């Protein structure tokens, strides 16, 4: 093979040049940072970005969360207390509590339009898992990627769903508050430990 068959660019410039290949895969999301809700996000990101990421994850959740005919079927996969009707799911705050009771008092400012979206796609009643948090943060926002809802399954695994597909992100902390991070790691990193040579040379580093 001496030459490329066709060239398609997913991120740069226009999509595809000449003689497009048939495939149409969308870019995969970066890992993102886990937040239970918008207020937790505000510790690291500005309020407006947090609200909009939370709202986007919620919308994604309502649109693409798996649906079940019965609560039992849903709970078999997602664990007891982690499922509800679209109305309950839309109202329940994303507290990440291990047993969020159906119909809990709405605490987080959940966006209203989500409810309509959920009902428009079905006729009768159905059940879906609760969104227990979301993946967002600065990297995803810079990359122009969609925040993704986060779920836990009956085996306590945490994973992100939404349009990017299912992606395992670790195990759910038993306290139900966060996705586990390795012991010994500091929660705030030091930075600027790389890059000084390029600054001194005042140059790029390619060759």
């Amino acid at each position, binding site marked *: 093979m001496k030459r490329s068959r066709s060239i398609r660019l997913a991120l740069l410039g226009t999509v595809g*040049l000449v003689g497009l290949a048939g495939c149409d895969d969308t870019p995969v999301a970066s890992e993102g940072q886990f937040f239970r809700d918008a207020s937790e996000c505000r510790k690291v990101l500005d309020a407006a970005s947090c609200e909009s990421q939370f709202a986007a994850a919620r919308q994604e959740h309502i649109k693409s969360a798996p649906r079940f005919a019965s609560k039992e079927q849903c709970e078999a996969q997602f664990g007891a207390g982690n499922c509800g009707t679209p109305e309950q799911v839309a109202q329940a705050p994303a507290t990440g509590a291990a047993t969020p009771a159906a119909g809990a008092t709405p605490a987080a400012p959940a966006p209203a339009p989500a409810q309509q979206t959920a009902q428009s796609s079905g006729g009768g009643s159905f059940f879906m898992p609760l969104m227990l948090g979301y993946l967002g943060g600065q990297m995803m926002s810079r990359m122009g990627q969609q925040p993704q809802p986060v779920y836990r399954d009956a085996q306590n695994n945490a994973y992100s769903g939404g349009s990017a597909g299912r992606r395992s992100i670790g195990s759910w902390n038993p306290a139900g508050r966060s996705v586990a991070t390795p012991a010994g790691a500091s929660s705030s990193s030091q930075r600027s430990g790389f890059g000084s040579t390029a600054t001194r040379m005042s140059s790029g580093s390619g060759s």
Partner: protein
Amino acid sequence: MTGLRRERLVPRVDWRRRAEEIGFSFHTMGGVPYWDETACYALTAEAVDGLEEATNELEQMCLALVDRVVSAGDYARLRLSDEAAGLVEASWKRGDRNLVGRFDLSWDGEGPPKMLEYNADTPTSLFEAAVVQWEWLETVKKGSDQFNSIHDRLIEAWGKFGIRNAVHFTCVRDHAEDFGTVEYLRDTATQAGLATSFLHVDEIGWNGLGFTDLDEQPIRTLFKLYPWEWLLEEAFGRNIGPSRVQMIEPAWKMVLSNKAMLPLLWEMAPGHPYLLPAAFEASGVEGPRVRKPILGREGANVEIVGEQSADGPYGEGDFVYQALHRLPKTDGGYPVIGSWVIASQSAGIGIREDEGPITRDTSRFVPHYFT
């Protein structure tokens, strides 16, 4: 008939617009076109076969050299620190995969091409070679062929890494060419199904256990367009080993991105038709010679001994000497053939011309085709 011929051309009136449409943001640098389609190079099919064969053979020799250096523990002549040597050894023994490299070849269309050097760690002009000249071929020389399967091979190579976590990409700030190169590579990784993101090299965090991105998420695989020897000298350098981050290019590329590899290769394969005589001392090379800093970039501080030299920031370090093999002189200057290897396979070429016989970062990229 020569295997390599320069043709003058009238550039497309809308070449700038076309370049920008495909995301080629650095087509003009310092007010001067870097992308130059007032000419192109025409190669014969035999010439392309010859370049491919030479490139594959050179790459195999380079891999053999790394093995030889690691087996003998011969790091002193490469001026590698103990720490660097440890990383080289560990990455070579683990069999860490590599992605990309570019041989710079001097060839006038006759006889065997000669390797001037190997940009094994941080090669640029990749996007131009893979995509921009391909777009040119499809509109200007439709029906002709081009020695260029770089794009397909990159996507294929990413797939073979077997990476299951996100891949972070990094380079310096405010440098359009480096950023364009990294974003292109990120594009190919994305198309291979990998989760990717970008951060500047100074934004990389260290949390005591591992490197982190701006969200405090672990960096498990890092593609860095930033020289290994710079990383290791800097504040976080000593954390690379303990962090167990997967680096692309891998640490063993430090053996090859260092021009001390030129005399080592000549020592391993003296008289090889694709190599030029090279030595650590001036007296080790007969006749006209070139002095090169072992860790220089973009032609900086290269000197054609007794004739002319290029300035730059690398004048203080160690040097090697290589027999002078002049680049061919055409009516557009001096062309050097950048021959790409992707995952150690010959994948295509990109030709740059410079006004002078030492190729600098002021060179122009000129497209090619073959029939």
